[in-house]
């Protein structure tokens, strides 16, 4: 059973603490993505799970075994590194079989597993090449192959796609997803790219400054961010966050602009409360060009500053009460800057955060 449990795990370099006692339960065969900006402690956490960094406090269990003091080789995990870390002096075949050879597996087992992995990853024709003779995507596949031949309890991925160009990255992302469906194993995957997190994860762990901000399925994290950090980090373009006040049952931006408090959030706010209003660009759409045109809504007339045509949609830059916001126009028509459009805000999709704690009003 490849479940992984982190219990109050701390990492400190001398006096500098970089991971502050995080708790996380990763189920058998689950695909968990640790995501966050650089320096948030996600890679350090992964390296602690791998055993490449000492654990300064707390406990890590892999497959119900305490691994705090076990070296990497005794944890039965495999890891894919950002720079692939293929052994340059070995052929693809030797790279794939290295772990099994070290484990003194009989040659026929090594051959069989290596060939099986090569088959899965489409490497069969490249077996005698050295890493230098492979393209970026092929190296990536060899690195994954090296991870799967050992049938480990868990795969650890440390930003495996960030060295690839944009097109290949999307392609390899799909392959990783497929691989996980074929080779059912626990995966812990670190990335700073929220799109990778959303597309790959069974569960996303959003981290910041050594703390876990939120753990949830991609849907939960996207639809119910617990604070403004998660709200702005997950989703592209990012959620608009506007300071506002609750005044007589309305969200008040300035003298000229206020909108009703969404009914589902009304019980959670108090009169006079300072809040931050969260609105995804997808939910601020010119009338007739939205994806949530039914349900609770309200309208604002806004002047377009700039329009970016993306094809199936156009990103519109405008302002609400002096703050720049982005909206979207689905099934777009031509928009000229300066034009005033009637925008619909899909109220039931909006968010309110307490201005002081930055937490969603639903939980604070």
């Amino acid at each position, binding site marked *: 059973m490849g479940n992984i449990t982190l219990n109050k795990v701390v990492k400190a370099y001398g006096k500098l603490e970089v991971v502050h006692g995080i708790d996380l339960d990763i189920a058998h065969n689950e695909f968990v993505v640790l995501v966050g900006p650089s320096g948030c402690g996600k890679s350090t956490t992964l390296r602690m799970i791998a055993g490449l960094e000492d654990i300064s406090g707390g406990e890590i269990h892999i497959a119900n075994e305490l691994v705090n003091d076990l070296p990497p080789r005794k944890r039965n995990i495999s890891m894919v590194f950002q720079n692939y870390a*293929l052994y340059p002096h070995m052929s693809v075949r030797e790279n794939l079989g290295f772990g099994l050879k070290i484990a003194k597996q009989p040659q026929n087992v090594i051959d069989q597993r290596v060939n099986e992995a090569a088959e899965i990853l489409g490497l069969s024709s490249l077996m005698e090449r050295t890493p230098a003779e492979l393209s970026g995507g092929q190296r990536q596949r060899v690195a994954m192959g090296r991870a799967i031949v050992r049938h480990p309890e868990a795969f650890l991925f440390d930003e495996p796609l960030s060295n690839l160009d944009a097109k290949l990255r999307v392609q390899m992302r799909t392959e990783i997803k497929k691989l996980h469906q074929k080779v059912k194993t626990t995966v812990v995957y670190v990335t700073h790219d929220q799109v990778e997190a959303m597309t790959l994860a069974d569960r996303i762990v959003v981290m910041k400054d050594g703390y876990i901000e939120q753990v949830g399925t991609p849907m939960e994290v996207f639809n119910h961010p617990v604070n403004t950090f998660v709200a702005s980090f997950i989703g592209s373009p990012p959620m608009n966050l506007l300071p506002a006040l609750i005044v007589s049952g309305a969200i008040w931006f300035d003298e000229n602009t206020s909108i009703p408090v969404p009914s589902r959030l009304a019980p959670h706010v108090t009169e006079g409360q300072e809040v931050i209003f969260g609105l995804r660009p997808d939910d601020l759409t010119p009338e007739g060009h939205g994806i949530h045109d039914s349900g609770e809504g309200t309208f604002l007339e806004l002047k377009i500053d700039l329009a970016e045509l993306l094809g199936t949609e156009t990103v519109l830059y405008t302002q609400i009460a002096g703050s720049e916001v982005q909206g979207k126009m689905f099934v777009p028509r031509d928009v000229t800057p300066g034009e005033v459009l009637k925008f619909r805000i899909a109220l039931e999709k909006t968010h309110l955060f307490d201005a002081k704690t930055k937490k969603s009003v639903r939980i604070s």
Partner: protein
Amino acid sequence: MTSLHKRQVKAVLTWIATFILMIVMCVPGLWVVLSGFRPNREILAKPPVWIPEDLTLDNFAAIFGLSDAQVAIPVIDYFANSMIIAVTSTAIALLVGMSGGYAFARFRFGGKNALFLGLMLSRAVPGIALSLPVFIIWSHLGLIDAPMGLIIVYVALNVPFTIWLIDGFFRQIPKELSEAAQVDGCTRWQAFWKIEFPLARSGIASAGVFAFLTSWNEYALASQLTRSTDSKTLPVGLMDFTAQFTIDWAGMCAMAVIIIIPALILTFLVQKHLIAGLTFGGVKG
């Protein structure tokens, strides 16, 4: 002039420049080697005899005491001393260099930069400036005229350099390779021998060649610290050919040939590693 012409002219000029450089570098060596096979009178002839007219092995025979000529030099002893001293000091310098280079490249520890700088600065002190203090200490320790005395000196001379060179090669090897090997089931020790050592081999080989040649060729310190056939090395032995009034150039050149040959053989054996353009394709693209 077309660009093809230009390129041809450039190529020819490059060849000529290379040729001149090669002459400057090789002729003295060639002269020594040739002189090893010529009688003294031809070497000293004025005007010089450029093309040898009378090639002979007499000089070598004389050195080894096989002819009735006056000189018999304990060349076998010198050779053995040189070999023992150079090989041992190189092996130790490499071992220390590998450990030190690896530590500098991989580990974080207090005073690392100061230590590294100190090692490099120790290279900046000319060895001969240390000869007097070394001589005094060695005489107290009874290390004068003992191979061990020279071995220690040469290790000290070579270690900063081997550490520096090998550190550079380990630095080029991403630490992720060792980590990947450890995740793959290796101990740190295994990861070193199976992954990092083979990749740094060319660097270690070049460090070895340099250390060996330094020890093999060193004259100044050896001439101070050796006395007899117990410890005299080949370069010091060369001075046996100078008598009060004469210098046996032919014998000296023949001996020089004997000194050059092992260095050439070693360099030749190791050059495969020296040139081995290791491609670090396993990492990044």
